[in-house]
């Protein structure tokens, strides 16, 4: 038999039976979600806290705080959806932070700046790593352990547990400099502020206290913050469930076109696994804040408010929730009516890892990122950060070009 014919037949057979393994690369590029694995930055637990740090332009940027050992890094996304670890990787041990709390405080001003607020290695000091996400600077100043932080414009406001009576518990940092501190009291006028979460609108600094009460301080007074600070009268509200928020509690302010607060969304849990709750308050109610709706949210650890394709949603992370019989965690996205403050009864979309693994803690933090001019959802899990370039809520692929 002619050997040439044999070879030709074999090659034809091979070509007919061969599998194109590059198809999986092509298919992977078409996946709606992109996963960034833990880079080699010296931390064993990557993505404890994340926050979107990009504002406009092509691609996107997310700040990531990891632990063991503590590091700060970024994920830089290109317009096509590819990602890499940013050039700046801070070993936080060299920036006053030797250990991180269970839920590190990582906030953004929405203009490209981020701030990581932690107890400093030096006793009686607060450590802040803040500034442009790609090149933040460190700062440490006298203060008690921080409990919550938020940006009010470019001003970073930090609520801390008072070390003693009449000790400062509210700190104001402008850029790289602490500009003031004051002694804030709760609405009773005597109890030192103990904040589980804080958030600011254009007029007030809203507080969700560790006892479950909601009240506000005048923002101008907060920024001045030189002596004592009392809550604004008529802003106090105690949720009917007397819910006491713990780790991961957040207060989200939904404002009007002018930035004035209309609704407050309280999301948190009393302990790690149970007693989670979401409460929506109408802040403009004539008689003071009024509870509009509540939602049981056991296991809730993270939350954010996002606007996808002009629709507003509340994103809730449940990192211990069981998915496909595996305690891998999931993220629920609920409709949020910005006019009435009403939450959807059931999630508009539920996200989880298509291949869930036990202990994956999918949704231990959630945030949004400006990506190619769109807002996309970013979810942190154990040693993975998922970026959703497309969901059923924003079905047009945000990648440029779309795969």
């Amino acid at each position, binding site marked *: *038999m002619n050997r040439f014919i044999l070879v030709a037949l074999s090659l034809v057979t091979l070509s007919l039976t061969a*599998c*194109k393994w590059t198809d999986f690369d092509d298919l992977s590029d078409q996946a709606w979600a992109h*996963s960034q694995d833990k880079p080699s930055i010296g931390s064993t637990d990557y993505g404890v806290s994340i926050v979107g740090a990009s504002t406009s332009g092509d691609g996107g940027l997310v700040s990531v705080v990891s632990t063991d050992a503590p590091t700060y890094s970024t994920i830089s996304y290109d317009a096509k959806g590819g990602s890499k670890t940013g050039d700046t990787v801070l070993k936080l041990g060299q920036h006053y932070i030797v250990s991180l709390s269970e839920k590190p405080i990582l906030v953004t001003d929405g203009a490209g700046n981020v701030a990581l607020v932690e107890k400093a290695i030096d006793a009686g000091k607060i450590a802040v790593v803040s500034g442009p996400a790609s090149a933040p600077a460190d700062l440490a100043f006298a203060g008690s352990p921080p409990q919550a932080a938020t940006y009010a414009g470019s001003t970073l406001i930090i609520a801390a547990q008072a070390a003693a009576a009449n000790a400062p518990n509210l700190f104001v940092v402008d850029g790289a400099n602490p500009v003031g501190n004051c002694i804030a009291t709760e609405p009773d006028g005597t109890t030192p502020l103990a904040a589980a979460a804080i958030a600011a609108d254009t007029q007030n600094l809203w507080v969700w206290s560790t006892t479950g009460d909601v009240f506000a301080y005048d923002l101008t007074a907060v920024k001045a913050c030189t002596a004592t600070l009392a809550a604004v009268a008529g802003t106090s509200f105690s949720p009917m469930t007397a819910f006491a928020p713990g780790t991961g509690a957040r207060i989200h302010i939904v404002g009007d076109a002018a930035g004035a607060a209309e609704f407050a969304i309280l999301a948190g849990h009393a302990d790690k696994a149970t007693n989670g709750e979401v409460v929506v308050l109408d802040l403009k109610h004539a008689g003071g804040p009024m509870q509009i709706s509540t939602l049981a949210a056991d296991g809730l650890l993270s939350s954010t408010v996002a606007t996808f394709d002009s629709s507003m949603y509340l994103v809730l992370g449940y990192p211990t929730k069981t998915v496909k019989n595996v305690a891998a965690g999931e993220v629920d996205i609920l409709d949020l009516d910005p006019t009435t403050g009403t939450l959807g009864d059931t999630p508009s979309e539920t996200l*989880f890892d*298509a*291949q869930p693994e036990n202990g994956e803690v999918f949704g231990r933090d959630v945030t949004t990122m400006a990506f190619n001019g769109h807002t996309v959802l970013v979810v942190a899990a154990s040693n993975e950060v998922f970026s959703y370039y497309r969901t059923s809520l924003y079905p047009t692929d945000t990648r440029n070009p779309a795969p």
Partner: protein
Amino acid sequence: MNSRVLLAIGIAIAALARPALADDDTLKKAQASFDQAQNDYLAGKFDEAAKEFQDAYAARPFPQFLYNVGAAFHMKGKKSSDVESYGKAVEFYKKYLSEEPNAADKAKVEKAIGVLEAEIKRLKDVPAGAGSGSGSGAPQGPSQEVQSLGEVKVRGLVVIESEPQGATIYLDDTKKGAFATTPWSGSLEGEHKIMLEKKGYRPVDTTLIADPQKLVLYKGGMSQDSYLSWLDVTSNVAGADVFIDDKSVAPRKAPAGTNVPPGKHTVWVSAEGYDEYQTTIDVAPGQNASVKAMLKGSPLGRLDVVGLGIEDSHIMLDGKELCDHGPCIKNVPEGDHTLTVTRPGYKSYTKRITIQQKQETSVKMIQTPSPGRGDAVVAYVLTAVFAGGGIFAGMQASDLHDQLKKEIAAGMPPPDSNDPRFLHGKIYAISADAAFTLAGITALTAIWYTFRDKGPPTRAQIDARAIALQPEVGSTYAGLGMEVHW
């Protein structure tokens, strides 16, 4: 006219007028005397045996009877050291050779004559009374030379006759050609088929068992058949194969004559090295017809295929069987030929050889066993394993591809880019490709192993040597002599 002349004429007339029945009587008388003589001979009554053999000879003068008379006197002389008996033995041995000058045992008989004549001389030279217990060394028995001749046995005889005489005798098979013409007498051994044919007579045949110590008679009575025709086939090549109407039967040897039914007959005459001759002849009832086949031949050389294991080999020349098995010695037309030698379990041998006129081409085969195919089997098994693995991995890759594609299209929830199934699918696909590649390689290897010729080929040593044929004539023979030079 005297009375002696009248008696001779009377005997001659009686002989000429003797009917066939008289022949039968003489034959029976000869057989009866022979049988009696044989019995006497075995009983040691050598004088009686000699007389009965002479009576048999008187009835039918077969030379073998004379030999038997000599044998009887020979044995009597040996037993009694009787000079007179030895003398008679010599006398009848000589008569035998006189009537059968080309006897096959001529040398042996001549030797016996010499020994006996020496013995007679030796006995005559012994003084009288020396043999009666004087103890002086006189001969007490036959000499050492006589002893060495051994016990002499009388000889049987086969007699084949026909009525009428003159029929052609075929022995065992017509393809051997004519054996003799009746009447015939001589020695045969074992069982034979005797066939008699004569022009205008129906052929007859019988089976005859020849006893070397008995007189065996066969006389075929042939009846006339005016309807049969007679066909004679002759050829310029003696011994050529003659086929009449049917080429599947054993051929006769030219010249051949046989009865045939009236009508058209096809005759083929062929001989090795000659072109086949064919003709059709129309024979009328009761008539004689003849075919003279002039064969045209081409010059011949001889091909001799030998070697170890050639007995199990099949030899083909130009695609046609030359020998069913070796050793194979055949005359082959000169020119180029393709020789093919095959043997089960051994590599076949094919060679273009040139046969030259009057030359013997000797091909000594050195055959090599065919290689085993175990390595090919292993390669086929590996091919199957790799192909099976490739199919499995390919199916897994395909399933994962379809699954991921479906989930991506559904988007609830969408798999992420680092979903392990992408990696698994890629690994499966690469594994499938690798397995298919290996399967292809091993398949090619297996095919190559199947058809490759491993080990040395079967080869042959080819020698050509001249054959010189020349006529030779001697005192008692004529023929062709051959010299071989190489």
